[in-house]
């Protein structure tokens, strides 16, 4: 079920056509998905204050209604160690068109996975699981299923990825917490069933999967036009 707060965010985002990262994360957090500790700093004072709260090293991302793909404009900086570094990044970000602040969040380790949803003309709501990150579209290692998903669907989505061995622990690396990944997909599938009238597509990319958690490190919701 969509909560009042979720509906409010969706309503407020309608004019720009999509839900920006901090608000999208808020929605997924309310739905029960794991997100990194984050704060949305609107000015320089908040930047330093929130950085202390979150703790270094941290990740900074630009927030702007005009920037859908942040990496394309170098709008994501990972592994910031000092306040000076952070301020420099802030100053660069503030030059971005329609700058609306900076997202400051904890760095989360893990394998990058993408979980997504799309309204398909012929089949309705579709859920995607794939190997994520900025290179997701180069490798295109994805499983697609029609929602709502059964537990069998979710298990087979993982199994059908070419890189599933990477998730299950490959050559000495730890396996990711598959139970957490399954839970993430389940919660996501249930949430998007409730959102289906509102959305065109959703990316949770990356979801950082480790042996401990699966954390939605970035998210965007494209609203139906």
């Amino acid at each position, binding site marked *: 079920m969509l909560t009042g707060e979720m509906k409010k965010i969706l309503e407020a985002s309608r004019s720009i056509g999509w839900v920006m990262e901090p608000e999208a994360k808020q929605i997924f957090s309310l739905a029960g998905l794991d997100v990194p500790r984050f704060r949305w700093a609107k000015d320089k004072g908040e930047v330093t204050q929130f950085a202390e709260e979150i703790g270094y090293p941290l990740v900074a991302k630009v927030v702007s209604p005009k920037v*859908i793909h942040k990496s394309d404009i170098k709008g994501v900086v990972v592994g910031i160690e000092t306040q000076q570094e952070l301020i420099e990044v802030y100053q660069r970000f503030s030059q971005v068109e329609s700058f609306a602040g900076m997202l400051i969040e904890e760095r989360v380790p893990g394998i990058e996975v993408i979980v997504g949803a799309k309204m398909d003309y012929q089949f*309705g709501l579709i859920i995607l699981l*794939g190997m994520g990150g900025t290179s997701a579209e180069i490798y295109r290692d994805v499983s697609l299923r029609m929602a709502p998903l059964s537990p069998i669907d979710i298990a*087979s989505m993982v199994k059908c990825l070419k890189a599933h061995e990477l998730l299950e622990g490959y050559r000495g690396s730890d396996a990711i917490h598959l139970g957490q990944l399954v839970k993430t997909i389940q919660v996501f599938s249930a949430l998007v069933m409730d959102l289906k009238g509102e959305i065109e597509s959703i990316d949770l990319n990356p979801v950082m999967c480790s042996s401990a958690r699966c954390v939605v490190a970035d998210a965007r919701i494209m609203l139906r036009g």
Partner: protein
Amino acid sequence: MNLNRLLQPKTLAVIGVSSTNDRHPANVIFNKNHFRQKVKVFPVNGRGGNFHGETVYPRVTDIPQKVDLAVIAARAELVPEIMTDCIEAGVGGAVVVSGGFAESGQKDLQERIVSMAKKGNLPFIGPNCLGIFSPPYLDTFFLPNERMVRPEKGRVAFVSQSGGVLVDQMVKFAVEGVGLSLALSIGNKALVRELELLNHFARDAETDVIAFYIEGFEENEGRAFVQAAAECPKPVIVFKAGKTSAGSRAVSSHTASMAGDYEVFSSVLAQYGIVEAKDEFELVPFCEALSCYQRPIEGRIGIITGSGGHGAIAVDACFSHGLSVPPLSEKEQAEMRAILSERLQEIASFGNPIDLTGSAVDDDFVNATKVLSKKDDIDCVLILLLPYSPGITSDVGARLSQICLQEGKPLVAYVPHVEKFLMFVEGFQFNHVPVSHSIEEAVHMALAMKRRRPC
């Protein structure tokens, strides 16, 4: 929507029969049904008169008997009026052969006949289609009989959006000896669409396998179709054309970009165990295999061959299609060796593929097949038969088929299809074992059973 009178009519009105143009589609349809099919056929034309000694009825309402099916092959603008007559006469269904509707921009005209038909409870196929091929009862294709290649009566229902693809694939069904229960060209599919036909054939006692050639679905129609197909106990095969989307729409999310129309289509079919034939080479072999074996397999293949090279090619093909070839244990190999002809015991290989060599006789094939058929970790046996091996007789196909029937384990055979070896082919085929033209195609047949398994 009840399609029984439409698809299994006892009486047929052919509307548009011409007294001046012998090559008019309606004339072709009238003649071929009149001379060769069981359906009772009545010619209709507004001018009335006499056609080859038969009374031509000016209107459907004039026909003295209840009409089950009306074939409408008149100009598009006349179709609404003809439909009004059909509804008034209580006709059970129609095939609208005529073009000149949505495919040529006349959407309004098409919508008009759809709403008439819905209101009047007149299910119709088309417009812009060939309609129904269902010998020995009925054939509404406007193609002269002498030009058609007609598959035998069989257990596969084939529904195609394209008439051309349908007729062409029918040639292949005929050549492969795969019989059709009914073939249907649905053209613009304005009213009766894939879903209604799926539901009809799911209940049809003459059909075991339902195959579709589909170019695309309307909004959310794909969802309803796959959900119905998942409920259907019979194998459903879909051959989709138009796999690359025409315009590359700018997409703003990774998901939208990676979940393209075809990727979604193909994945959703697999999710529900609907068998996708990915190209025209898969379609007919899939129909053949699934009309023999309806149960899904995991895809663990046992291979019995008379030549090492054939075995190696089959293994390669299995791997490239995601099928596995589980090895036999030392113990199983020893057991297999013990039951074969003495002269094979030192020269044959028993690992999987089982290479019986060119010295094998029928009994060796039979015994090896028995052993593999009883193995739990093998769910399909491929026989690569080389009829030129001197120890093999033309009885072998029928003998091997009996094992398959007895053990219930799917068997697929490869036999070179030349006239000289047809007895080998028929030995399998007449005993309900599918036979392929090539090693690759034999592997395709096993693949069809694997795709039956939801993934």
